[in-house]
């Protein structure tokens, strides 16, 4: 997802070329009017946007299924709360930081455009832009929400809702938008390093992943999770069907996430590209699932359903940095390696006593890094350029997240009392149990 403005400009450039007969390639003969292109481009943003919005439901169900029954209501309120806070913050300031309109020759590290973001008047349209600005804002906003969703899964079951929501406020208002400005906002990574991240393996998924990792370290593991002798005490998820439904919802939403990141569907070429992205996205996820099933079957003698679910998501994250350029075979391979990453990184985190309830760190952070670096093979990017993007994101997001998590820890506190944690956050924080009939 390069900046919409650049893409729109390229689009206009293409239609200007039609005037020159010598350059009229076959697709240009199929060109539509600016008004029709505006409608199709806008439609792509809207459809993609509500598909990505629905990913919030996917995260909610995945997490509700993988926490213990006593923390399920809490996980649900965190998910609908973070989605709403992300939208509010992205309107208040987030979009203005993400797309600051860096001045020519500036380093492009931080800027703020006028805020709040202005919408078009009723019935008005600007065909020069190529799409409705509200559709663009909506599409960008749901990506911001996705970033926050990643964090809630990792730190589930042991962080109180108020500090969690405060962290989400800073993450969606400042931390994430700054990363976006470096790349999709035309800033430092885009202009200096030629960094390439089509739909956000780094910008969205690794950003959420770093925030989650730092959170998990500062908050600490769930009470009783790691025994004195290094033994891992397993807390199996309460509802595997919900986790499976959540994963399917995320998989569906990803067609919007990657497909609509083409940012244009007003030409026949763009329509073909969006379709190709759908295929590659699907096949990467399928590769991740099959690899995770085979590996767990071979290593543990039983296939692990939660690993298969994580495998799908790792495959999706892996292909997100470049879902258009790879062949289908490359996509399956890239997604399949995402599945390998999940199966080996999940137990590895436990070795370091980093308690990631739903596996968001392997899925979003590690597979996100993998997906970003491999663009040097499949896409238009250099390995060094990709590495700089990964590292810069790591440093900024980790440092900023650490400041916020630590500030919360030493002021209002992050964790419930051990007694409340053992009783379950549903009773301690929400007062409504998810499955009251079963608790009796």
């Amino acid at each position, binding site marked *: 997802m390069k900046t919409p403005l650049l893409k729109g400009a390229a689009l206009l450039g293409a239609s200007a070329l039609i005037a020159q007969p010598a350059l009229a390639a076959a697709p240009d003969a199929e060109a539509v009017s600016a008004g029709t292109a505006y409608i199709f481009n806008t439609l792509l943003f809207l459809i993609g946007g509500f598909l990505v919005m629905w990913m919030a439901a996917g995260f909610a169900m995945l997490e509700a299924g993988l926490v213990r029954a006593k923390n399920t209501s809490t996980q649900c309120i965190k998910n609908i709360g973070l989605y709403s806070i992300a939208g509010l913050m992205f309107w208040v300031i987030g979009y203005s930081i993400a797309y600051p309109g860096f001045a020519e020759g500036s380093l492009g590290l931080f800027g703020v455009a006028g805020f709040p973001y202005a919408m078009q008047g009723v019935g008005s349209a600007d065909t020069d832009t190529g799409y409705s600005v509200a559709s663009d804002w909506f599409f960008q906003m749901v990506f911001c929400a996705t970033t926050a969703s990643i964090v809630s899964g990792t730190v589930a079951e042991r962080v109180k809702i108020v500090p969690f929501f405060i962290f989400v406020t800073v993450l969606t208002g400042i931390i994430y938008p700054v990363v976006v400005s470096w790349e999709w906002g035309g800033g430092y990574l885009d202009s200096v390093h030629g960094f390439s991240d089509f739909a956000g393996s780094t910008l969205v998924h690794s950003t959420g992943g770093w925030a989650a990792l730092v959170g998990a370290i500062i908050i600490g593991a769930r009470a009783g999770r790691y025994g004195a002798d290094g033994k891992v005490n397993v807390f199996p998820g309460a509802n595997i069907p919900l986790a499976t439904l959540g994963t399917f919802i995320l998989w569906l939403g990803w067609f919007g996430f990657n497909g609509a990141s083409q940012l244009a569907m007003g030409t026949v070429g763009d329509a073909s590209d969006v379709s190709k992205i759908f295929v590659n996205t699907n096949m990467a996820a399928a590769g991740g699932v099959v690899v995770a099933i085979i590996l767990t079957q071979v290593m543990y003698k039983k296939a692990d359903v*939660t690993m298969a679910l994580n495998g799908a998501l790792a495959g999706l994250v892996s292909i997100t940095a470049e879902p258009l350029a790879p062949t289908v075979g490359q996509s399956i391979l890239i997604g399949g390696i995402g599945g390998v990453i999940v199966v080996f990184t999940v137990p590895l985190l436990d070795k370091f006593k980093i308690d990631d309830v739903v596996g968001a760190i392997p899925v979003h952070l590690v597979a996100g890094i993998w997906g970003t670096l491999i663009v040097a093979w499949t896409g238009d990017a250099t390995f060094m350029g990709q590495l700089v993007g990964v590292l810069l994101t790591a440093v900024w997001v980790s440092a900023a997240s650490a400041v916020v998590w630590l500030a919360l820890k030493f002021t209002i506190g992050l964790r419930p009392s051990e007694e409340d944690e053992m009783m379950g956050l549903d009773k301690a924080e929400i007062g409504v149990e998810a499955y009251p009939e079963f608790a009796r």
Partner: protein
Amino acid sequence: MKFIIAIIKPFKLDEVREALGAIGVAGMTVSEVKGFGRQKGQTEIYRGAEYSTNMLPKVKLEIAVSDEIAGQVVETIQQTANTEAIGDGKIFVLDLASATRIRTGEAGETAL
């Protein structure tokens, strides 16, 4: 009268119920229970970490019968619920002091 408590594998319940019906057992109480025996549960793997399921699900049958058929009931359960594998369960027999049918007030073996 005897009071028979049998702990069996859940999937054997229907088979045991049919076999007991065939030898004249008129009723029983069934509960889903959890527990462990000499095997001490079993080990599973969740997300790459081993854990032991300390309590395994079992079905508990409670059956009150006359002294005459008590031996046959125990034998029937033992044979029907047997899979020749660990975790097949146990059968306990207690002396039963009295039995009363609530609807009619009948007492003793006629209440069974």
